[in-house]
């Protein structure tokens, strides 16, 4: 509130000085009205509507008058399936974030060493991204299937005792999903990183070579800090993918064995549409939004808060 007030008085002051400021760039402002409208109504409005209804006993249809307070949240946090979902999302999220960035950057750096056939490799690495999550999920379900996939192939080579069936093992099933997620997503991160690397001035490389800094050190100390905006973009894209992971799980395991590979988005969808309990689904989606905000707000504060102080 305080920030908005401050900005308001400031703009009031400037508009007093230069009264035509409101009409500056009129076309641009007019053009952005639809987007502003969309943001206000669709994003903010619907979010508020959802949050409000998460405090009601809405079943198949929204029931704004059946207020139940925090009941839906109490039920949510005492549901084992939700707790398992959160745990899975945390494991999947952290691993996927780290691995996508590391693998993506490493591949990009390798391609950037002016190797032969770069175009071919780039295409191969990016190719999985052209597939939908459903296709990716089904492909990996087969690859990881103990009767047809990796396990049976290795066993046929002679290593009889080899077992690798993550999708049938409740303890490691989420890693089976992670493999598919990384396979699909890291090529895309690689391309973004590669674009970032290509944006680095050739003179920087010349300078570090003159100074005699080893290549790996140049990457870590000089190049990566320079690529900060690229990393932020990649981070946002990966994080969005993590929060909404749903189709991959549906295609690979549909949550099984048991409930061991459930994820929050799946909980929301199933409570809303299969269990006909909108209130519970809204409560779960509000918690998902909250978890995004918990990450986003401190970051936004660090990212944009600093500039105002300058």
């Amino acid at each position, binding site marked *: 509130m305080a920030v908005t007030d401050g900005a308001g008085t400031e703009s009031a002051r400037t508009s007093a000085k230069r009264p035509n400021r409101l009409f500056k760039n009129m076309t641009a402002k007019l053009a952005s009205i639809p987007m502003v409208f969309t943001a206000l109504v669709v994003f903010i409005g619907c979010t508020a509507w959802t949050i409000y209804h998460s405090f009601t006993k809405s079943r198949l249809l929204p029931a704004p008058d059946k207020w139940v307070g925090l009941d839906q949240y109490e039920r949510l946090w005492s549901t*084992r399936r939700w707790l398992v979902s959160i745990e899975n999302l945390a494991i999947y999220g952290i691993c996927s974030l780290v691995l996508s960035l590391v693998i993506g950057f490493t591949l990009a750096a390798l391609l950037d060493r002016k190797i032969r056939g770069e175009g071919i490799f780039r295409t191969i690495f990016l190719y999985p991204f052209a597939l939908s999550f459903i296709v990716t999920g089904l492909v990996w379900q087969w690859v990881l299937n103990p009767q047809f996939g990796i396990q049976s192939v290795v066993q046929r080579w002679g290593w009889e005792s080899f077992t690798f069936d993550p999708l049938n093992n409740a303890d490691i099933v989420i890693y089976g999903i992670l493999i598919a997620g990384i396979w699909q997503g890291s090529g895309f991160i690689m391309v973004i990183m590669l674009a970032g690397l290509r944006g680095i001035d050739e003179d920087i490389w010349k300078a570090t070579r003159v100074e005699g800094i080893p290549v790996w050190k140049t990457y870590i100390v000089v190049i990566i800090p320079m690529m900060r905006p690229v990393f932020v973009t990649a981070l946002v894209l990966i994080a969005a993918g993590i929060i909404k992971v749903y189709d991959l799980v549906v295609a690979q395991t549909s949550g099984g064995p048991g409930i061991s590979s459930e994820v929050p988005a799946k909980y929301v969808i199933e409570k809303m549409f299969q269990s*006909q309990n909108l209130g519970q689904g809204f409560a779960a989606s509000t918690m998902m939004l909250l978890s995004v905000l918990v990450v986003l707000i401190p970051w936004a504060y660090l990212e944009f808060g600093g500039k105002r102080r300058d």
Partner: protein
Amino acid sequence: MNFMKATTAGIAFCAAGAVSAAELEVTHWWTSGGEAAAVAEFAKALDATGHTWVDGAIAGSGGTARPIIISRIIGGDPMHATQLNHGRQAEELIEAGLLLDITDVAEAGGWKDIINPSSLLDSCTVDGKIYCAPVNIHSWQWIWLSHKAYEDAGVPVPSNWDEYVASAGALEAAGKIPLAMGQQAWQSSGAFGVINVAVGGVELWNKINVQKDAEAAGGAEMAKVFEAAAAARAMAANSNVQDWNQATNLVITGQAGGQIMGDWAQGEFQVAEQVAGEDYTCLPGLGVNEVISTGGDAFYFPKQGDADIEAAQKELAALLLSPEVQVNFNLKKGSLPVRGDIDLTAANDCMKKGLEILAAGNILLSGDQVLSADTSGQIEDLMVEFWNDPSYSAADAQAKYAQIIGDAD
């Protein structure tokens, strides 16, 4: 501008489609071989009246199709008729006034007298008005046993649940899976319900599911049911298929001793050209409590606000219950007809067993009729975890179950 034109044209087109009253779009999720053949009987009968059946089959199970159907009705793009499991799934749609009242059709057809059991019609009735046309009866309470598996194991085919449990060791020694189970939530929950009725009895089941008695759900009698379910879980430990028909296939090929599954499984046996009593045995109520639940499918007719279409919808409703259509449909589907007054001489052994039980009145309501979708969903979540996690103790699961029943509405 082009967009506007296209939209207007689209609306005009839709309107034109709706005006020709003879075209009725019907959504359902009957897509397997036998099911599709059964639906074709409906379509044939409707087409014969001069109206046209526009098939809106939605692939996937009811769990996939129901949200699509409901969101179309709520979203203002209702189909002309749709399959749903009657009971509480459509409760709120009726309260919101989105479904057509077909009481006059029911009265004209004398549904009150012909529909057996009458609970089917009760499930279609809200405040004395009838909103759906039941078309068949499906029951869950069956176990399907493979004669081949028992021959290979060298033990006689069991005739009830206790013998079946006792034979598990012999089956395992012969390299068979004693109990075939798909790992999807609805199957776990359904199998548990069957064990519940067989081991705990009808009275206990009614007390818990109809009266929502949480004390009974947490009581000593129910503890026996959970112990039995835990034993069944151990018997199904090596069954790692997902879909129900894959599990049925294990029984058909003799790799598994048996499967707890509803009467729709017999369609699979028919397709595999197996004969009841020779190649497989069916035991209603697990051979302990010979009762069947009388859930099933029903058709609902979303409101269209057009008198011509409404008339056609009502004509379809009457048609679905006509004796001829009932016989043709149910023989193909493997389900029991909703009318007690028609002759099913062509029915196979298992269907006849079902008809006898039905005629004797040993019936109970189905889960869809007594529990809300929300409660069913919670029980499914619990059961799928219980069946797949051997470390989840029967006592813990029972405590959680009692809590769900206590919260149920």
